[in-house]
């Protein structure tokens, strides 16, 4: 038990380090960008918010901090949190380390929902609801394919995700073809590429309850996720109501993905990489890994977004940067899993 207590302390330290990393990353993200601000300027803007001094006009640093960077930073944190938790939950309930919201096709499905809502000229809430509905249909289709061909294993689930994701990609192509090239097409392409450039307090406010409820539920279910990752017969014999609890996890994970897509479009790889790193640091135990992956996801996406808007004069789409990191990482996982595929 002594060893266990030592490990507990070790895991707590890792979590605290991740939280400190998040605070540091937020500070860096507030300072960096095309217009570099010093830490003291950012501090002044943060501690003397312009809305408290109604007599004074808003200064440029205050505007950059509160109106440009802060919503973007909050958006990156929420999406990193949501996609990481969603990926970790999918990996546990499908007992498959290769899956993530994008590899299961959920992200593409949610983008189709968002595109449909854009065609119908819906607001952010409509986009969110449509992203959730089509995302959920996509994940259910992905689960159905291996069952239909009677080959339920790690690889067939990933292949099914690619096939169903490809189908959703085709529908997305059709929607782009039908979209008005002067207004709607631009919005759909934005969603497809993934960017935090259009995040504002209104979109954050509309999606925040989803992140809090679905994310909170997954975090509360984190011990249960360990049991749900056992083989079905053993999980039921251990006392879980497998169908009901799996459905609850799928609903929460899909809601998180849909809310992320509604804010910033499709951002790949976060939901695959972060759960792996968190599990590696916590002896695979979801009980400790889930809070850690949520924080690490926020740190990672914040880092990616800060790089995306700082490394060149224009803005690099997030998908390019996450893909550059994610692809070798995925090959690494495949290599590690080669015996079990």
């Amino acid at each position: 038990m002594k060893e266990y207590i030592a490990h507990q302390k070790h895991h707590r330290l890792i979590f605290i380090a991740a939280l400190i990393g998040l605070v540091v990353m937020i500070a860096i993200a507030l300072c960096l960008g095309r217009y570099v601000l010093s830490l003291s300027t950012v501090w002044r803007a943060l501690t003397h918010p312009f809305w408290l001094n109604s007599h004074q006009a808003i200064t440029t640093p205050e505007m950059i901090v509160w109106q440009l960077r802060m919503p973007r930073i909050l958006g990156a944190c929420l999406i990193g949190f949501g996609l990481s938790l969603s990926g970790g939950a999918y990996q546990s309930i499908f007992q498959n380390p290769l899956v993530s919201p994008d590899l299961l096709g959920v992200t593409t499905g949610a983008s189709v929902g968002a595109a449909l809502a854009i065609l119908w000229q819906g607001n952010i809430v409509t986009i969110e609801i449509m992203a959730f509905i089509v995302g959920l249909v996509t994940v259910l289709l992905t689960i159905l394919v291996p069952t239909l061909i009677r080959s339920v294993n790690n690889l067939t689930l990933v292949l099914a995700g690619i096939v169903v994701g490809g189908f959703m990609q085709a529908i997305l192509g059709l929607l782009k073809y039908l979209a008005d090239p002067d207004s709607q097409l631009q919005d759909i392409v934005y969603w497809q590429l993934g960017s935090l450039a259009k995040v504002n307090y209104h979109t954050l406010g509309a999606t925040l309850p989803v992140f809090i409820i679905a994310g909170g539920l997954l975090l509360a279910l984190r011990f249960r996720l360990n049991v749900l990752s056992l083989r079905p017969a053993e999980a039921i014999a251990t006392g879980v109501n497998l169908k009901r609890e799996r459905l609850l996890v799928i609903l929460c994970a899909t809601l998180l993905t849909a809310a992320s897509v509604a804010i910033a479009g499709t951002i790949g790889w976060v939901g695959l990489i972060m759960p792996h790193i968190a599990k590696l640091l916590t002896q695979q135990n979801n009980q400790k890994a889930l809070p850690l992956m949520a924080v690490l996801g926020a740190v990672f996406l914040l880092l990616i977004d800060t790089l995306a808007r700082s490394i060149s004069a224009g803005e690099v789409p997030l998908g390019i940067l996450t893909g550059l990191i994610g692809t070798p990482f995925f090959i690494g996982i495949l290599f590690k899993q080669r015996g079990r595929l």
Partner: protein
Amino acid sequence: MAILEVSNVQFNYPKGPQCLDQVNLALNTGEITTILGPNGVGKSTFLQLLCGLLQPTGGEITLNGCAMDSLSPAKRAQTIALVPQMNQIAGLPYTVLDYLLMGKTASMGLFHKPQSADYQAAEKVLQRLNCSQLLERSCASLSGGQLQLVTVGKALMQKPKLLLLDEPTAALDYKNQVEILRLLKDLAHSGLAIALTSHDPNQAILLEDRVALLDKTGHLRVGPMTTMISAENLSQIYETDLTVTFVPNCQRLVCTLMI
């Protein structure tokens, strides 16, 4: 006292042949029932019916007098614990401690996590199984014998009244087989009802309790080991020639294959 009663149970998979036909069995406190039968006869299926994972197509199974299908998985798991075949749990990424704690699921709420009493219970279970040193080890790094002990440990964490084991010694060497069989005898002495499946009649002889013979027609015959283990009975269910002889040196019966 019968914890679980099986009355006229029938079972077949959809579009499959009859797997179990008019089966009757009572599993009693302190008794070990070894279910013997050839490959593919439905021993594991029967075990899944006994713990409520499958529903019979006819007849009834009752747990402490309640119909099995009326009980939730959590209610069932508070009385019955299942130890699956070892190949079902190989490669588990969790530590032994984390795996043992999962045995407490049935007594926890949906959003609850293990408390300090549960950690102490896990430590006690490992002490009882003489493998406290495994607490922090990853399940994936354990030998077959250690893994089997740990799976029994997780089942014991459920504090069951009935323990079901699916071929608990199938992949084990002699030393580990003896260890598991001794453990089962100890557990039965402490009042647990135990049912296990096995291919090997010698294990039923070593356990010296009740034997259930499941044949290819789906019929189950149950009785004391001394009457059920005979060359005639075994040759009939395994469809091969077997001898059962008394060996004075060991003071027990021994079943031998004839080639």
